[in-house]
């Protein structure tokens, strides 16, 4: 023990330079940025008092002192890897190994001294930084117990999070014997490595062309350790500290064990343990084979099992040889280790064979109805993208601020604080259960059956397809007929079989050709229940206000404070109206408004963006008579186009034509109510349209329509933007005025 402390003291002195550099880095990344952000916030608070509440500065301080500060994550992850590299390098050089291992000290003692040095430097630097941040906050006059608490939690989270990442990177250093392989292995252990992502995507692209993970799982599967650490910083960082400690201890114990087993002669080779060479080589060669096959597939735009199989096997073999060279830095080694090469190819072939059944029929797989337990379908073009769930650390008295943009007001910055956006895909797939297995089977069959046709509808010589498709050409430029004919829907399917297996597929199907089955599916009660799960699961007691956004397409944001009873009535009315909502209405009709259910009253809007309090968002269609009736009790009015036109003071249009040598521009202003009415009938708001009826057919020209409203509900913006509706004909006067 005495020797350990002696060595530790020596190591701390010898590596002081690195410690100081790390300290400077932390100071700049945390303290300096913290002071800059808070100073800016103080400045804005002074300059624009109406835009900020009294709680603004304390909240900013709490947030930036806490783990929510993104530099906290950057510092911890980067220094964890860097210090591990520094502390392990003595094991990768023959001279240093000879020096340290000939000393009258156990090699684990030497290792321990260096290991602990790496932890002490970070802990000391981060603690000093924390103290400086407290001093800085006190000098600004805003030091509170709360700020100190969140800063302290960040300190503890940082130290143990760092130790966890550091210990994994040190393990990588122990298993390898050169700096390069150390970095590679450390990256694999800890960071989101492009290779892992490429492996995932290549694997999916090769064998699971229509496979898709749930969105949240993607990052977790790429890099569990760093994802875990990032996740831990939510809720201000107090969660998972115990996990960090336990994991750090376990991995540290493993490190000491590996250190003991590690041979001293393992220097300047790729790996420290020869036993790892074969499995790693096989693993990497398969990875490279998959990635390479994926890349080849992308380059040549070919499909078919045979191409994948051949390219995969060839690339696996080539990769295996290349890896042999890299591992041994010996070009002559290409011909050595033939058994590993054979093993790589054999294993790849075996994997291919195992997957062959799936690969062969993967894209067109469609289970029979009797095999299906239930299914969920997400149709991207019809989805309600505005779905949210309350954050786990939701605290109405202490909202979180995470902002480094110096120009936003408090109101603008607060978006997303209380609720976090949930991908509609995940929400729908998790909550939809279509037990009508016959319907599910027919829908799946339709998707699987059209897969090849849609995928290969790109114009090319082979299929003589000269028509532009929705994929080939920007949707905005398709004329109505072309659009309807070529519109494809993106589908993600989740199917649970009676065998217990759940699988995912994604498809692209032609809307017109599959209209009947899409219509049948979207009309089913089970589908709607899943599609509108956010609405059905909404807790009415939390709702304090509703906002009707983009009312009548023109950004009329109207707010009403409501109580629980009114919320229940609205929820019931919407549920009833939804039952009769048809596919045609969803695709061909623009909604009247987008209704947001907020958990804070409208007055909170002064300082806090109400979008950050949105629990549920739904569209209200013209046929939602029940909903419109209830909204009418609140004072919401339905407008005819004539009434709307009365509210508009003028409309500006700008037409640009760059088909000639120079860009031609024509500006017009309309105040005549009849003309305003015609333009209103011609335009739509794309943000509310499910099928994106808005669009302009000519890629060489553009038409901007700016609508100036003078009514009481006009937003702060000077004008609203109107988008030409591709299903409607342009008014003649407009064509004439703009020389179209």
């Amino acid at each position: 023990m005495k020797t350990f402390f002696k060595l530790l003291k020596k190591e701390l002195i010898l590596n002081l330079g690195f410690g100081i550099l790390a300290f400077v880095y932390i100071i700049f990344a945390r303290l300096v940025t913290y002071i800059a952000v808070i100073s800016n916030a103080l400045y804005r608070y002074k300059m624009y008092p109406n835009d900020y509440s009294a709680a603004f500065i304390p909240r900013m301080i709490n947030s930036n002192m806490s783990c929510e500060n993104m530099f906290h994550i950057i510092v911890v992850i980067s220094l964890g890897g860097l210090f591990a590299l520094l502390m392990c390098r003595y094991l990768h050089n023959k001279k240093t190994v000879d020096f340290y291992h000939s000393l009258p000290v156990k090699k684990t003692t030497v290792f321990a001294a260096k290991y602990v040095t790496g932890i002490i430097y970070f802990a000391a630097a981060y603690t000093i930084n924390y103290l400086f941040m407290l001093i800085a906050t006190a000098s600004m006059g805003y030091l509170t117990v709360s700020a100190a608490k969140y800063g302290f939690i960040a300190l503890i989270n940082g130290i143990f999070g760092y130790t966890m990442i550091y210990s994994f990177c040190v393990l990588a250093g122990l298993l390898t014997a050169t700096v390069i392989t150390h970095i590679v292995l450390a990256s694999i252990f800890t960071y989101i490595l492009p290779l892992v992502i490429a492996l995932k995507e290549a694997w999916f692209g090769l064998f699971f062309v229509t496979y898709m993970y749930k969105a949240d799982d993607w990052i977790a599967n790429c890099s569990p350790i760093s994802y875990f650490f990032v996740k831990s910083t939510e809720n201000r960082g107090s969660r998972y500290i115990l996990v960090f400690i336990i994991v750090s201890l376990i991995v540290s114990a493993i490190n000491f064990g590996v250190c003991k087993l590690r041979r001293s002669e393992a220097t300047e080779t790729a790996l420290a343990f020869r036993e790892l060479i074969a499995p790693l080589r096989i693993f990497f060669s398969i990875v490279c084979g998959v990635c390479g096959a994926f890349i080849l597939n992308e380059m040549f735009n070919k499909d078919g099992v045979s191409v994948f199989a051949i390219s995969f096997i060839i690339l696996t073999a080539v990769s295996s040889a290349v890896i042999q060279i890299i591992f041994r830095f010996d070009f002559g080694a290409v011909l050595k280790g033939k058994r590993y090469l054979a093993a790589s190819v054999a294993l790849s072939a075996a994997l291919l064979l195992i997957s062959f059944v799936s690969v062969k029929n993967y894209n067109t797989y469609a289970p029979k109805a009797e095999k299906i337990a239930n299914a969920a379908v997400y149709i991207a073009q019809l989805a309600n993208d505005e779905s949210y769930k309350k954050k786990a650390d939701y605290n109405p008295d202490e909202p979180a601020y995470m902002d480094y943009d110096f120009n936003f007001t408090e109101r603008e910055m607060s978006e997303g604080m209380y609720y976090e956006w949930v991908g509609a895909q995940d929400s729908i797939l998790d909550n939809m259960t279509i037990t009508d297995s016959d319907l599910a089977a027919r829908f799946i069959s339709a998707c699987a059956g059209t897969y090849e046709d849609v995928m290969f509808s790109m114009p090319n010589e082979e299929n003589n397809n000269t028509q532009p498709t929705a994929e080939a050409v920007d949707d905005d430029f398709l004329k109505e007929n072309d659009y309807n004919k070529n519109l494809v829907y993106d589908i993600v399917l989740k199917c649970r079989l009676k065998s217990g297996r759940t699988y995912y597929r994604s498809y692209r199907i032609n809307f017109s050709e599959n209209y009947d089955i899409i219509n049948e599916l979207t009309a089913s009660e089970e589908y709607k229940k899943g599609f509108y799960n956010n609405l059905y699961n909404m807790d009415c007691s939390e709702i304090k206000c509703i906002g009707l956004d983009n009312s009548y397409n023109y950004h009329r944001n109207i707010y009403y404070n409501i109580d629980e009873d009114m919320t229940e009535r609205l929820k019931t009315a919407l549920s009833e109206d939804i039952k009769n909502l048809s596919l045609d209405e969803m695709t061909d009709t623009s909604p009247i408004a987008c209704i947001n259910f907020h958990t804070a009253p409208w007055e909170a809007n002064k300082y806090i963006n109400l979008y950050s309090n949105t629990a549920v968002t739904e569209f209200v269609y013209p046929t939602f008579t029940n909903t419109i009736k209830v909204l009418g009790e609140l004072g919401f009015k339905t407008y005819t186009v004539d009434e709307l036109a009365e509210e508009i003071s003028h409309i500006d249009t700008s037409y640009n034509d760059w088909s000639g040598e120079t860009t031609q521009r024509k500006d017009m202003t309309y105040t005549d109510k009849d003309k305003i009415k015609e333009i209103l009938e011609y335009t739509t708001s794309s943000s509310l349209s499910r099928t994106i009826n808005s669009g302009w057919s000519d890629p060489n020209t553009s038409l901007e329509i700016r609508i100036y409203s003078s009514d009481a509900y006009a937003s702060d913006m000077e004008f609203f933007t109107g988008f030409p509706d591709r299903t409607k004909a342009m008014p003649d006067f407009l064509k004439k005025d703009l020389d179209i």
Partner: protein
Amino acid sequence: MIKLKNISKSFEDIKALDNVTLDIEEASVFGLIGTNGAGKSTLLRIMSGILKPESGCAEIDGKNVFENPEIKSEFFFIPDEAYFFKNSTPKTIADYYASVYKNFDMKKFEEMLSVFSLGMKRKISTFSKGMKKQLSVILAICSNTKYIYCDETFDGLDPVMRQAVKSLFASEMDLRGLTPIIASHNLRELEDICENIGYLHKGGVLLSRNLTDLKLNICKIQIVPSEGRDVSAAFSSFRAYKHETRGLLHTLTLQASIEEVEAAAKASSPIFYEILPLSLEEIFISEAETAGYSISKLVS
């Protein structure tokens, strides 16, 4: 006493040491000589506890060296390329060694540095190769260990410095019974200082003997036989390492004592004969050639 028992060590496909057994007495200089790739450095590293042998063990005073700090404090290893901390000075290194070698004599270290004109606070990175070797030797001596393992230490030292180091070793041997174990190709230098030698060849021990005894058993003679006399026949009872002929002059290296060779020479009534002193190098070459390591084959 250092005992090496049946030590074998391989590095992947290369057998570096094959069943090496050696005993190294205390208070005498042991020379570890051998051909290129014989395994000298590997053996020293095993003796230093850096490498673990696949079989056999290295013991000092009956205790295994590997991962045994108590026993490792008995020796100091000077590798062929010593490591010094970046931006360090002799003082820094000495402090480090002082923390692990209980008996490190800092005062002696400072004195020896000034004797060798090495600055205590000068950056080691500015030292020449020879100066670094000097520093290594000084550190080893000041650590006051029982044994010092030197791997090619004399290479890089100028002749004056070599002599100085040899004197240092001799003085320490007298004072406290230091046992230097020196691995080197520089046989001329070893000849002056070594008392015992171990001769490694292709991972095995060719011989391990007292140098004086070794010299006693090999003899070199130049002889001009009388007319009609066959030189080979005159010395046929001895093992001949080498027999060169230049005109009438024969030079033979024989495994025999001087007395035996002289008696045989006289018996053949030569015109002329002379017993020549053998250098360690000549002994080494002879033994190597016997083992199949032929210089002539390398250059032909």
